[in-house]
């Protein structure tokens, strides 16, 4: 075995670290982000106009069911966003991927915002349907806990003078909080809840009419692309800001005649 092959990182590590180069990330994301914004905006607009103006009323809820076309995508993205936050944290802890820390930090506020919209639109749907803005129902409570986990992560990564310690503490919180995701998913099956069970699953046919399913899918895909666009744009800004900080520190050190740490 030669020295080069013994020093090489494992295959998965190599493929991950190819994208760890900030310059390569900035080049690639600079091309992808505008497409994500434009396609995401168009698909979202199509889904929302379809859902608001052309989809049929529900036989029981009437026009109120149109809140579904905004509430459900945000509910999916609240959980999916947290999963991506936990995945970034895992990559950060295991492989020390330089962009994973920043990705986790930047996903947090976007996920918290989307979870807040999920809670607010759910409340606006609950009032005319259930007669209450809020109930401490298993699904609502577990999503509220998810919102608190996002807020906790945002606060924790910023609570340390040494950012590395903040990233590590935030990563551990994010991984512990993953336990809440199956609780959210199965809360409507495990407990008696006011919230309706899932109409769309990965296994089995959806129990929702196609005339409602299609605008919902368009809306969900559009908001997902927008979530990705916002997160990648924030990550671009964070990479550039880190570069600015290191350049300023290097300039300050050279001005004072000190040696710049590697």
């Amino acid at each position, binding site marked *: 075995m030669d020295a080069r092959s013994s020093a090489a990182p494992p295959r998965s590590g190599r493929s991950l670290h190819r994208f760890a180069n900030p310059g390569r990330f900035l080049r690639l994301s600079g091309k992808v982000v505008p497409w994500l914004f434009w396609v995401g905006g168009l698909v979202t607009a199509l889904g929302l106009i379809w859902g*608001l103006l052309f989809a049929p009323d529900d036989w029981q809820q009437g026009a109120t069911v149109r809140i579904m076309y905004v509430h459900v995508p945000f509910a999916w993205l609240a959980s999916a966003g947290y999963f991506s936050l936990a995945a970034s944290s895992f990559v950060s802890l295991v492989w020390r991927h330089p962009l994973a820390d920043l990705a986790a930090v930047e996903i947090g*506020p976007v996920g918290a*915002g989307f979870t807040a*919209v999920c809670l607010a639109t759910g409340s606006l749907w609950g009032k005319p349907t259930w007669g209450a803005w809020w109930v401490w129902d298993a699904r609502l409570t577990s999503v509220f806990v998810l919102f608190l986990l996002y807020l906790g992560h945002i606060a924790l990564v910023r609570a340390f003078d040494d950012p590395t310690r903040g990233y590590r503490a935030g990563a551990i919180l994010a991984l512990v909080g993953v336990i809440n995701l199956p609780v959210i998913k199965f809360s409507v099956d495990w407990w008696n809840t006011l919230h309706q069970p899932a109409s769309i699953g990965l296994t089995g046919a959806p129990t929702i009419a196609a005339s409602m399913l299609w605008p919902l899918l368009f809306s969900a895909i559009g908001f997902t692309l927008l*979530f990705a666009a*916002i997160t990648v744009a924030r990550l*671009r*800004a964070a990479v550039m*800001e880190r570069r*600015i900080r290191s350049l300023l520190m290097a300039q300050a050190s050279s001005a004072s005649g000190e040696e710049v740490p590697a």
Partner: protein
Amino acid sequence: MTHLPYIVGAYVIAIGMPLVLSFEALFRVRSARRRLQAIDPRRDRGRA
């Protein structure tokens, strides 16, 4: 359509939040790119 205010409210929040987050992200990218170019003018990293 007695529930129209609830529907309109939900759509306004759902469209408003991604819009605010999008503009905030884009302004942050633009500001960071400008500052980076001012410090390190040899490399056009933001546009690359």
